[in-house]
């Protein structure tokens, strides 16, 4: 791949990226969330088209216009979210779209033989005739690998293949990868786990902000250097000043031994009045799961939650709201808003009781007045209170979600990726609002994948990995390198 460039509206996702892969090589691709790894691989797999640049396979320049074309050229993708049909068995999944047939009928024996041949080659056995949904993740992954191999893939891309595996399963996976290498396949290996790279990768390429920072042989590329290359940039200082938190400020939220499998494994922490606690970590580390379990979106299996010093029991989001939580979800379209409802109806949805008169009917005028007030206070750009939420921009939608939760005078705000996908101006407004909430005495938990945001907006930073708090930093002590190191497990 040479000189690949790709621009999404408002974002330069890839800028002149070049990457080469040799036969029989495992080439690791690392970078922070949003560095461009997935975009690059989607271009290779034909799922996205590049704006600039070219791709050559075996020295011949090719155009990859569709996933099918990529497959024909010998490119196989194994996404983190598998593409198996859960209700079909291993054999059916492997031949899916490629079924051997006798006339009009499927040739089941040939299909089975084909699958068995691939598994024999990989040196693995697994149940071939049960629904894949009943298999373990590691087994499903092997089916994915068999699937791409059965289509004679010579270039195999694996996106975070070890993210959901146990140590033993990882060992097995690495054996399979070595078998693939020995057969002459080239493998692009995307991973956040820097500690495993020396075991499996021949070379490492670091991407940052859509550019290749460096490519080196793994043995000449110590983890510290990789981290430095991943982080690289200076912290921008567009963050407002945080209020100081007195060390004896009352604890507004105390979480102890919170557990909910999978994703939350015994998490304990406290948030004081006026404090912003940032949860850092990689995608899939369990940060979202932690705040969901606190808010009552998922029900924890173990652990206690104290709010303002009182133990509470949360069995539903309803209980969470009653306890004084405001949970601003990560995905505003799927979880935060009813897109087909107006701004007004969205703003008042969680606290409609404030707008009900003694006759039990909703006072629409009061709703409108209050919504208008928040439109002005948060500078929501909308033609009226009656505009459908669907028609607003991302930043304004996020402000509608915020207005919904500000209505409740919550004591604890749980922000999950509060600024994802919104423009810089709206981001700054949301930061200011968070500071205002902290000044007003709220406790704030903020999950963010943007390192500068966690470093700039939190009094304390808890680094999450494997559903646990692995490291805690005070604001002054946190450096990008140290946070990444803790999040990736590269250093203790």
């Amino acid at each position, binding site marked *: 791949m040479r000189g690949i460039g790709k621009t999404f509206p408002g974002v330069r996702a890839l800028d002149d990226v070049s990457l080469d892969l040799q036969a029989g090589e495992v080439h690791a691709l690392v970078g922070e969330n949003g560095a461009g790894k997935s975009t690059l691989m989607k271009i290779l797999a034909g799922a996205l088209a590049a704006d600039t640049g070219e791709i050559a396979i075996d020295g011949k320049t090719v155009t990859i216009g569709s996933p099918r074309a990529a497959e024909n050229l010998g490119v196989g993708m194994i996404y983190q979210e598998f593409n198996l049909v859960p209700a079909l068995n291993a054999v059916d999944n492997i031949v899916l779209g490629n079924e051997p047939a006798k006339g009009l009928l499927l040739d089941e024996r040939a299909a089975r033989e084909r699958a068995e041949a691939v598994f024999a080659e990989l040196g693995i056995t697994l149940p071939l005739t049960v629904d894949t949904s009943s298999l373990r993740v590691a087994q499903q992954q092997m089916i994915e690998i068999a699937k791409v191999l059965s289509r004679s893939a010579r270039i195999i891309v694996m996106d975070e293949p070890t993210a959901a595996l146990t140590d033993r399963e990882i060992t097995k996976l690495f054996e399979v990868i070595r078998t693939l290498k020995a057969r002459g396949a080239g493998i692009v290996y995307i991973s956040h786990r820097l500690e495993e790279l020396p075991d499996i990768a021949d070379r490492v390429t670091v991407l940052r902000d859509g550019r290749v920072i460096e490519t080196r042989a793994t043995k000449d590329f110590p983890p510290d250097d990789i981290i430095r290359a991943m982080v690289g940039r200076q912290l921008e200082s567009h963050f407002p000043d945080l209020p100081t938190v007195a060390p004896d400020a009352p604890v507004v939220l105390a979480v102890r031994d919170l557990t909910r499998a999978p994703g939350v494994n015994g998490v304990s922490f406290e948030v004081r009045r006026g404090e912003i606690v940032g949860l850092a970590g990689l995608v899939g580390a369990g940060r979202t799961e932690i705040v969901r379990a606190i808010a009552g979106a998922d029900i924890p299996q173990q652990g206690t939650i104290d709010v303002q010093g009182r133990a509470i029991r949360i069995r539903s989001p309803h209980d969470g709201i009653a306890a004084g939580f405001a949970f601003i*979800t990560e995905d505003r379209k799927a979880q935060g808003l009813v897109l087909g409802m107006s701004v007004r*109806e969205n703003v008042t949805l969680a606290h409609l009781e404030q707008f009900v008169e003694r006759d039990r009917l909703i006072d629409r005028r009061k709703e409108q007045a209050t919504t208008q007030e928040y439109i002005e206070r948060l500078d929501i750009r909308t033609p009226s209170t009656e505009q459908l939420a669907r028609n607003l921009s991302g930043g304004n939608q996020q402000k509608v979600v915020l207005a919904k939760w500000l209505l409740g005078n919550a004591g604890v705000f749980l922000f999950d990726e509060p600024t994802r996908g919104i423009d810089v101006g709206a981001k700054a407004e949301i930061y200011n609002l968070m500071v205002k909430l902290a000044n007003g005495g709220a406790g704030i938990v903020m999950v963010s994948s943007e390192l500068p945001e966690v470093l700039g907006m939190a009094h304390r930073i808890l680094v999450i990995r494997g559903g646990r708090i692995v490291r805690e930093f005070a604001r002054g002590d946190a450096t990008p390198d140290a946070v990444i190191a803790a999040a990736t497990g590269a250093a203790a």
Partner: protein
Amino acid sequence: MKAEARTYWLRAGGAVAFLVVLALVINFASHGTFLQPGNVVRVLRQITYNFIMGVGETFVIITAGIDLSIGSLISLTGVVMALFANATGLHGFALIAATLVVGLAVGGAAGFVNAVPVVKLNLPPFITTLAMMQIALGLSYILSGGQPVPLQSSDFRNTGYGSFLHTIVPIPVIWMIVVLIVSSVLLMRTRFGRYVFAIGGNEEAARLAGISVGRVKTAVYVISGMCAGMVGFLYMSLFSSGSPQTATGNEMLNAIAAVVVGGTSLMGGRGAIVGTFFGALLIGFLDNAMNLLQINSYLQWVVLGGVILLAVVLDELRKRYLKRA
């Protein structure tokens, strides 16, 4: 507010204008018989049943659900009420009220049973209400022995059939108006109604906003069952008997048609009781007109089916047009 109100009245006004023109055309084609007072009253009488069933269905469909059991529930509640009325020693108003309460309770209980697997196990309402459709029909045959149960009391004559103010306003129409007003207020002006829309629009967002999704969903199926019970009461009064064969044809489908023709989205999150009223009115107009014009009854089915299809296609095209504009 202004824009919303304007579109609302534009749509309502458009529907009224369309129905008026349609009525005039039918009237012309039927040589003036369609708009004779006696016939208009007949149409209103006829749509009452379909409309009240449609009201319950509207609540269910706005939550993105469906209730297929309402036709059978009309039969079941009718039979149970007739048996109850014959067995109890009550008279007059007490008898009428007690019988109605029994019908509403039976319908509501069936709705509750519909809702439990939907709420607790997340099963598709299509299946649970399909099962209830069979169960209720079977029960109505078992309880009645397969024969209509004639009412022994004549107290019901005026509750389902009679008229008011010198035969100008038929009793069923009064029921219809009361249901129209009460259900519109419930859907458009209360927290419950708002939650019905929110759940149909985005169930997860509704849950995270603290809404007890399970309770609201249960309530809409109970309401739908109670509406069926109310129609069962009206039919029982009309025929002076409760029969397992009261509603075994297209009643449930017609009710769903009225809801959909009235602009309520099967995808959930959007709809109105007034729309269901217009939908029932349109279907009633066409039904009656085709009878007046002596159109072959098999052809009538084809026409009605075509109208339903046309209505939803036009609605979809309108939405796409608005999105582009």
